[in-house]
């Protein structure tokens, strides 16, 4: 009887320690998945901000919701050639080019500043871009990114009529833009750009100093590093200057390491807000299409803020 008990005891012992060992092996995986769940829980209680809504800070002519990162300097060189419909004599516009050189710098994650000089109408421009909300999931949910971009432009062409009294302020143009953007999926992002332009001087007394425009734009990635972009600015009737049209642009973003190349076709010649939003004169259907490109090259100059 006693030996029977002993055998049962040993058998039980052996059985239990085997199951114990098996449980142990499973436990390692279980413990890891428990940790993973815990971390996933922590993630949910944190805010996850959407990144890379667009490849760079410009869509084609205008701004995107993107900022350059803090401490990063972005050198932008942009060209717009002449109109395609000038024919082979002008090599479809390539004989003419207008250019903008610009520098953008990220002060914080929320704020970037930029300056530029365009050969078109010898214009200087300066702006800042402030992110008000960032698209996010998790603890703080925000469906869109909202940015505010005010721009001032200074036209330095010689006075058209030097004999009249000219004011310095007549050279100034102001633009205010709100940009509401959303990254819908890895490849698709869309943004709306309500825009207000103020020009201190207009040609005719009948023309308005103000202009309201509604912009829409977006991108669709076709590969990891290439996307198709479109951008359209609709001028609200009643404010537009005579002879102007709405700006429509189509293009590609091609990203190669630290560079982003943007190639596009647009009916706008100018490369700052007030020119393409309010002073576009080209018509796509007539072939008044300018081929152009933007090149962006970033340099990390400041320390990264975490």
């Amino acid at each position, binding site marked *: 009887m*006693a030996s029977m*008990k*002993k055998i*049962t*005891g*040993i058998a*039980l*012992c052996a059985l*239990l*320690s085997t199951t*114990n*060992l098996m449980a*142990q*092996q499973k*436990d*390692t*995986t279980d*413990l*890891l998945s428990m*940790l*993973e769940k*815990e*971390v996933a829980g922590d*993630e949910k209680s944190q805010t996850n901000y959407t*990144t*890379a809504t667009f490849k760079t800070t410009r869509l084609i002519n205008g701004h995107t919701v993107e900022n350059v*990162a*803090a401490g*990063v300097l972005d050198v932008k060189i942009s060209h717009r050639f002449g109109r395609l419909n000038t024919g082979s004599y002008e090599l479809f516009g390539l004989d003419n080019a207008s250019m903008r050189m610009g520098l953008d710098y990220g002060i914080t994650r929320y704020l970037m500043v930029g300056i530029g000089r365009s050969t078109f109408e010898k214009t200087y421009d300066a702006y800042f871009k402030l992110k008000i909300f960032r698209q996010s999931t998790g603890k703080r949910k925000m469906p869109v990114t909202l940015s505010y971009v005010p721009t001032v432009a200074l036209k330095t062409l010689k006075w058209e009529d030097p004999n009249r009294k000219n004011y310095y302020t007549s050279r100034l143009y102001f633009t205010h833009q709100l940009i509401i953007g959303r990254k819908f999926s*890895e490849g698709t992002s869309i943004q709306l750009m309500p825009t207000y332009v103020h020009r201190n001087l207009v040609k005719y007394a009948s023309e308005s100093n103000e202009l309201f425009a509604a912009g829409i734009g977006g991108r669709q990635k076709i590969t*990891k*590093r290439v996307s198709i972009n479109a951008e359209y600015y609709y001028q609200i009737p009643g404010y537009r200057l005579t002879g102007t049209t709405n700006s429509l642009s189509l293009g590609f973003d091609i*990203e*190669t*390491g*630290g560079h982003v190349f943007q190639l596009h076709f647009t009916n706008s010649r100018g490369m700052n807000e007030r020119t393409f939003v309010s002073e576009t004169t080209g018509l796509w259907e007539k072939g008044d299409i300018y081929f152009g490109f933007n090149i962006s090259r*970033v340099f*990390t100059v400041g320390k*990264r803020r*975490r």
Partner: protein
Amino acid sequence: MKQGILSAAFIIAMAGTAAAQKYYTKNGSISFFSKTSLENIKADNNQVMSVLNAQTGEIQFSVLVKSFRFEKALMEEHFNENYLESEKYPKATFKGNITDMSRVSFATDGMYTVPVTGDMTMHGVTKKLSTTGTITIKGGKVSAVSKFFVKLADYNISIPNLVKDNIAESVEVTVSSSFDQKM
């Protein structure tokens, strides 16, 4: 009867010691280093989950790809967007075994070099990985370190021609965890 009680006591004692042989942490670290003549790229992640089973020799790691931090913001963006596709493949894991656990004495302070083999999964690809690691026991605290190379092509991470000279074909990965918890 007496023996029954003894066996029961033995089992409880066994279970007791076995239960104290899993070490884990949520704050392990993984860093990687890509060295080329043009550019050195380094990234760190200090939110690595790791479990070491002292009894069976099992060792596992899990990490969220998007929590790697780079010196340059754009590198981090490209790493997530173009190379590791962290939206699509959020985790990287290693599940393996220390094949010769008998070398390690958890009761004695010291450094023990051990062979490790297992499966590493990242960017949706699982590959066998064999390397050596060092387990350090100091005052009852257990930590593990390992260094190995990962060939990017093995994990379907393709580098475009334009930046081929900037990114190494094989990057050096350093894993280190101090197991601050046990059960």
